[in-house]
């Protein structure tokens, strides 16, 4: 359980970090290291150089920018968990923190690191996919954004270009007065990797009708995904239990579920349906001011 030998650099700016990444195709970014170091220890990753961005001040912090909350890529999960702006404006992200690792790993793990790692069942990528957030990337001294829907391509495979660096995440803020979120997951032990997880955010009008709805599932296939068919079916309804159940069942039917040693494809699919339903109903109840 010892990594291969590598060089270590701690650049003092984003530009310097990008130059180091551009100079060496086998260089790898490290921030909190909570996902990367196990990969190194098992030699699943064998970089020639680690470029440590954990202490770059321009990559840390949470701020509001119009209708989005911008979270710096190297913002630690524990810092985002405690940040009042996250709790007030991006309640779905605030909701999932207790399921991400343990307090000891959230202390160092970063928001951008979890997104770059792109585990199929990780909670932060699920929230990013569900809300349709944008990933801000610096590559060859150019800044660009990639939509979440185009970012997660497969298990631990993303659209981040070779030598690119995630600098921030732009999470959309829903301004609805009646907003609710829900999140459920099944796992072997609390804080282990989820087998399947589901996240939902809904907005209701004064009459209790759904005006906006986002549902995402993680762990069902090789990357977290937003299920737009559910939103299409539910907007305009009162989100009663039966309508929610029908919409979820119809939307998940065509998705091919993955499987592994712990869970069959059939189990994942059935669990995803149940968790998605519960997440949506929790979100509805929260929006009604009557959480279950």
């Amino acid at each position: 359980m010892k990594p291969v030998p590598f060089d270590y650099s701690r650049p003092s700016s984003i530009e310097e970090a990008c130059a180091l990444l551009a100079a060496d195709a086998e260089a790898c970014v490290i921030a909190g290291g909570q996902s990367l170091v196990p990969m190194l220890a098992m030699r699943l990753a064998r970089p020639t150089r680690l470029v440590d961005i954990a202490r770059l001040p321009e990559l840390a912090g949470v701020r509001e920018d119009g209708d989005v909350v911008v979270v710096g890529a190297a913002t630690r999960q524990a810092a985002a968990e405690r940040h009042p702006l996250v709790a007030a404006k991006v309640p779905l992200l605030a909701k999932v923190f207790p399921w991400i690792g343990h307090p000891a790993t959230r202390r160092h793990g970063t928001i951008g690191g979890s997104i770059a790692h792109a585990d199929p069942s990780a909670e932060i990528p699920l929230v990013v996919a569900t809300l349709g957030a944008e990933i801000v990337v610096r590559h060859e001294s150019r800044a660009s954004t990639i939509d979440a829907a185009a970012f997660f391509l497969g298990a631990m495979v993303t659209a981040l270009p070779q030598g690119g660096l995630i600098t921030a995440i732009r999470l959309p803020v829903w301004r609805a007065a009646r907003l609710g979120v829900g999140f459920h997951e099944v796992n072997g032990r609390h804080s282990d990797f989820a087998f399947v997880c589901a996240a939902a955010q809904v907005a209701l009008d004064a009459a209790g009708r759904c005006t906006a709805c986002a549902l995402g599932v993680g762990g069902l296939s090789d990357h977290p995904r937003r299920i737009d068919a559910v939103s299409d079916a539910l907007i305009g309804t009162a989100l009663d239990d039966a309508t929610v159940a029908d919409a979820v069942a119809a939307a998940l039917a065509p998705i091919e579920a993955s499987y592994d040693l712990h869970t069959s494809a059939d189990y994942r699919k059935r669990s995803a349906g149940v968790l998605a339903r519960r997440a949506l109903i929790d979100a509805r109840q929260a929006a009604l001011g009557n959480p279950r």
Partner: protein
Amino acid sequence: MKVELTVNGKRRTVEVEPRKTLLDCLREDCGLTGSHAGCEHGICGACTVLIDGEPARACLMFAVQADGYDITTIEGVAPAPGELSVVQDAFCATHGLQCGFCTPGMVLTATALLRANPQPTRDDIVTAISGNICRCTGYGQIVEAIALAAERLARANAPQEGTP
């Protein structure tokens, strides 16, 4: 690479390969073998140390990343040589350990918990130690130990000076 570490309040300079984890550095270069190497990939919590007062995995950080932090290992929790901290003593009183392999991590995690939350509920305690695996006790006596330490700290009429 040369790195300057602050461990248990003492500054030391070590010469390490970049791939050496903070855990291996503490054990091999600093002689602090109380931090235990269990799984070495962040699952078991036996290597838990306090970084700026909060629990962290010493196996998930390289020593070259650890400069500038205030690192506390199990060797740094007792108020004086030959004495035990309140948390350590509570683990003895309730038989909160058997083989002892997970104990340093448990004690440090509990120490940080009680500093942040002096009156934890049972749920708070269970959540706090959820990242530390024990294969002997079944956790019951560990939870009791932490609750006892909280009770003793609350009853003490002076702040526990010198107890991190």
